[in-house]
Structures are given as C-alpha cells and as structure tokens.
C-alpha cells in the first residue's frame, strides 16, 4: 500500500523565483491538502483540492496556487518567492468516501530554502 509521496525532498531557490512541488496521494485517496511548516512551528493549512478544484483555502496570498490532476496527484506552485517562504511543505491525503474522511495522512515533505 503506497503512502503519500512528495518530490523533490529538498529545493534551493532565490528570491523572486517560482517553484513547483509535487504530491501523490495514498492509494485510494482522492483529496489532497497542503501545509506549510516553518521551523519550530506547527503546520499551517494552505489549501485543499478535491475533484481537481480548490475546495478550501487558508490565509495564504495568491502567490500560492495549486492544481490537482485526474489521477488525484497535486502540485503546489509558489510565485515571486520571498525569504519567508522558506519552510517544510507537507502534503496530506484523505478520502471523502471513507468513514474517516477527516483523517489526513502525510507525506515526508519538501524542504524549501529561499536565498
């Protein structure tokens, strides 16, 4: 049973650049959520995708955008990178068809460093 996978594991960018992070959900899951975890903090909700549409969004600027593909995988895009975007980006998946649809399972994360 494949778990949630994310790529790349690490990424270094410079201010003003754009970045794309990728996530494949756990087998059988159709919903993907993205979180930003700054150093020493708990994860903060960015947005959630289901049926290829953004369903919910946290308090993040429009520079953060996403996409979900028909195979349920997802991308997180960040434009005009700022130093403050340096963080661990976590992807989590869940299934709206399951009784535990509120339970999310996480991938290993992508560590983004903005210089």
């Amino acid at each position, binding site marked *: 049973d494949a778990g949630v996978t994310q790529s790349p594991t690490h990424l270094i960018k410079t201010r003003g650049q754009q970045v794309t992070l990728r996530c494949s959900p756990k087998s059988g899951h159709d919903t993907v959520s993205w979180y930003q975890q700054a150093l020493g903090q*708990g994860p903060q909700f960015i947005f959630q995708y289901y049926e290829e549409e953004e369903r919910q969004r946290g308090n993040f600027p429009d520079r953060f955008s996403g996409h979900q593909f028909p195979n349920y995988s997802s991308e997180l895009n960040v434009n005009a990178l700022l130093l403050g975007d340096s963080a*661990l980006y976590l992807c989590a998946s869940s299934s709206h068809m399951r009784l535990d649809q509120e339970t999310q399972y996480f991938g290993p994360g992508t560590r983004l460093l903005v210089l």
Partner: protein
Amino acid sequence: AQTVTQSQPEMSVQEAETVTLSCTYDTSESDYYLFWYKQPPSRQMILVIRQEAYKQQNATENRFSVNFQKAAKSFSLKISDSQLGDAAMYFCASSAYSGAGSYQLTFGKGTKLSVIP
C-alpha cells in the same frame, strides 16, 4: 475558527516510564475530531491516535492513550512504557467540518519529547 494550544514546549521521560503531553483546544463546531501526530527528525508526520468528539470513550492505540475531557476542551496524550523511538515532536491537532465536504487540520506548536536511556 479552531485554536489548539500545547503549553509544554519540551518534555523528557525515562525509558520504560510513562509521560503525558497536554493539549487544549477551542472550537465552535459540534462535529470535530482530535488527533495526535508524531514528527521524528525524519520529518514525516505520523498519525498516532484519533478521537471523535462525539465519543465519550477515550481512544487507545497500544502504548498510546488519550484523556479526552470535552467540557474542559482538553485532550492529553499518555505514552506508557516509553521507548527510545518515541523521541520526536508531538503535535496536537483538531479537525472540523468547514463546508463543501472539507475538513482542515489546525495544529498546535508542538511538544518536543526526549527519551532518556
């Protein structure tokens, strides 16, 4: 809106002993869920235990159990027979229905647990 507070930034426990991590939360929702996640240095966030708010019985998973006090909005995690592999950051989180079939997690700031051999 949901808030989750973990008031213990760091805790330590002797191997084989028992430790309790504290968490309080606030939510206006009646349908919500509570979780404890473990994040070892490898960064992977691992689900430890889950509690449905409508259930009075406290959840247990092997050496892990919770003390859910709904009126006090308290949700503590007890780890029995602590092992070296339990050393990690532990995050308390709540999840409530936010419309359009969506649940989103709200996390506390975490408690760093050290296990002393």
